[in-house]
């Protein structure tokens, strides 16, 4: 079974949330801006707890923010 990867819609959701900045999102969920950049660029898969916090910050369900793509 090949490894999949977690993709996300954070960039679009930030835009929908009135161009929320990466720093604003980082402050809301309690991480650094670099971590938000890494998650947004699919370079880092967040923990389940952080993923829930990000979804909560946008007021969306987890699966609307993150998706698991099988390769």
């Amino acid at each position: 079974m090949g490894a999949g990867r977690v993709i996300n819609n954070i960039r679009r959701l930030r835009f929908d949330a009135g161009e929320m900045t990466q720093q604003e999102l980082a402050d809301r969920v309690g991480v650094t801006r670099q971590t938000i950049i890494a998650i947004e660029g699919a370079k880092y898969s967040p923990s389940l707890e952080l993923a829930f916090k990000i979804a909560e910050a946008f007021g969306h369900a987890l699966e609307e923010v993150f998706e698991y793509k099988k390769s």
Partner: protein
Amino acid sequence: MSFREKSAWVCLISTLVVFVPYFLMVAIIDAAGALKMGAIVGLLVAAIFFQGAIAAAAMIAVAIRSGADTADERDRAIDLRAFRNGYFVLSVSLVSAICVMIFAPSSWASHLTLPLASQVFFGCFVAAEVVKYSTQVVSYRRGF
């Protein structure tokens, strides 16, 4: 670039800048047959002090310019990966060095002095540190 990534760069560069010349110097002294414990301890203390001073000064400059931040889960994950890689290099290199010393041909035995053995072991620690900082730098650059 985050404070922690800059810190990793500072530690990596200061370690290489100080300890590559240090081990070259040790090799030159050893080749001249003058590797004595007293001289090595003096050189070692100077190198550690110099590396600490460079790293501290650079760290203060980085903190003043960009501000220190607290570690989050990604930083901790990167640290764990870096420590794992560093520990792997440390254990493999130490075991290899010990095996070489135990099973070395008799022609080498006369050359394996305590000062040389201490430098080999110290080299294992420095190599592990370099791998640890390199892992941090690569993880921050390429993603984790």
